[in-house]
């Protein structure tokens, strides 16, 4: 069996698209991890909330619907920070992680209650569907949303790099990620830096919600759940201590998923998660600190 022959241009285009979406989610998770040392398992439910917003506003003009999605996701991110993360800031990482599990399932349950009011599970989000049309480039079908995903990922990462590298708040975020305690002693406002990171991560979640909803217009309570698990694995594989290695990890696992998905015969795609996680285990055995980590990064103390 010649695997390489199956990995054609079509597969690569789709794999890059998936990698871009996962990279955006990885940045969103990595930004909050940087300042709070908290792995937010509930990140997928922010995406889910955005997808439901798109579904419930699908009679609106597309721009209005997308704006509502961003507003809801950002508001929910800030609420999560204020109500859950802030009181837990000094707790152990295990407590924080378990709490984000609880938040994830709480949000999923709320979504279910809201969703089944019409006696069916799943809401169609039709207004953004036209983005899913394909255009043909040199014999390869490229869905418009793939271009949007790659474009959004490049622009978002570029803007983020400028923000972190050139602005005062970005400098303060980098310092907070390295040593929050000393940053606070210098007068860096912890609440402001954390809120800023949470808002940025919310903006990215909303963008991901739009892209994923275009690709999968039927929104259900477990929307983006599997993606979040895969991205979290990717983030750990890349090395969560650094934002850019986490992002690369997210992209890598998305790209690998896409390529393996294309390479496996259709009837064998049930083996996709096994194949991806086998690859992950291999990577973690060979490079325990992360695929892209330079040496063994020590965990930095939290606020």
């Amino acid at each position, binding site marked *: 069996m010649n695997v390489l022959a199956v990995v054609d241009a079509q597969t690569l285009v789709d794999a890059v698209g998936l990698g871009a979406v996962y990279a955006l989610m990885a940045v969103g998770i990595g930004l909050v991890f940087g300042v709070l040392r908290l792995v937010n398992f509930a990140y997928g439910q922010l995406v889910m909330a955005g997808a439901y917003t798109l579904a419930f506003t699908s009679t609106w003009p597309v721009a209005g619907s997308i704006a509502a999605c961003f507003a809801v996701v950002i508001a929910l991110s800030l609420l999560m920070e204020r109500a859950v993360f802030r009181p837990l800031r000094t707790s152990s990482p295990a407590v924080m992680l378990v709490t984000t599990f609880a938040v994830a399932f709480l949000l999923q349950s709320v979504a279910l209650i809201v969703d089944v009011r019409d006696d069916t599970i799943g809401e169609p989000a039709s207004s953004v569907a036209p983005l899913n049309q394909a255009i043909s480039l040199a014999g390869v079908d490229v869905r418009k949303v793939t271009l949007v995903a790659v474009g959004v990922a490049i622009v978002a990462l570029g803007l983020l790099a400028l923000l972190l590298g050139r602005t005062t708040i970005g*400098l303060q975020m980098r*310092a907070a990620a*390295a040593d929050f305690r000393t940053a606070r002693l210098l007068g860096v406002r912890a609440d402001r830096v954390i809120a800023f990171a949470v808002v940025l991560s919310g903006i990215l979640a909303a963008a991901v919600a739009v892209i994923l909803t275009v690709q999968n217009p039927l929104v259900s309570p477990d929307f983006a759940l599997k993606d979040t698990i895969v991205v979290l694995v990717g983030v750990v594989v890349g090395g969560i201590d650094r934002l850019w290695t986490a992002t690369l990890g997210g992209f890598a696992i998305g790209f690998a998923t896409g390529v393996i998905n294309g390479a496996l015969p259709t009837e064998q795609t049930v083996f996709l998660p096994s194949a991806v996680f086998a690859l992950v285990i291999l990577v973690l055995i060979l490079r325990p600190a992360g695929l892209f980590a330079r040496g063994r990064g020590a965990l930095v103390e939290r606020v």
Partner: protein
Amino acid sequence: MSDARILELDGVEVRHGSVAAVRDLDLHLLEGEIVGLIGPNGAGKSTTLHAIMGVLAPRAGEIRLKGRPLRAGRPEDVARAGIALVPEGRRIFGDLSVEENLRLGLAARRGGDGGSALDAVYELFPILAASRGRQAGALSGGQQQQLAIGRALVASPDVLLLDEPSLGLAPTVVDVVFAALAAIRERGVSVLLVEQRAQRTVAFADRTYVLGNGELRMILTPADADDTERMIAAYLS
């Protein structure tokens, strides 16, 4: 304003769990004064600084800056109120550049021109000016200490707290640090200096508090620096 006490600790008690690290401590700084704080390891020197910064909450007593009580729990507010700390072990940001480290210090600055504050630090520590684009982690220990002091100074604090700035530095570099402190005194900044180098601190500071086992043992003046018996008594009492 009673006798221009800029910083005042009044009956402060700080506990680490069930252990009282500092007990009933009265201490004050007048405007423009350099005050030393010495004592053996575990005497409560660093604990006192952490209580002032609000990192540790006093169990009893009050800490006042210009007559206003400081609230514990939010060190960023204490920094913004005008107290800057040069922490033990310097705690510079090794992955950031020298200039970025200094710009972080501007977070606590209350108005005014941040650029000229950076220039003033570069003038005080020319080595920092020469290496402003370098990664701070690549600096030598003495240079990192100058960076940590500079980073505190750009905030134009009313009070500068230093936690063992000479620790682990070569003797010639210690001279540089003390020369910098003398220059800082010229600018009218009040300084609370925690040190292990007892004799040098007593000779340098306007007054020096001696802590032992969490309690104030005595207050020494520069005249006591050469009185070896009194110095030894201060540590062994």
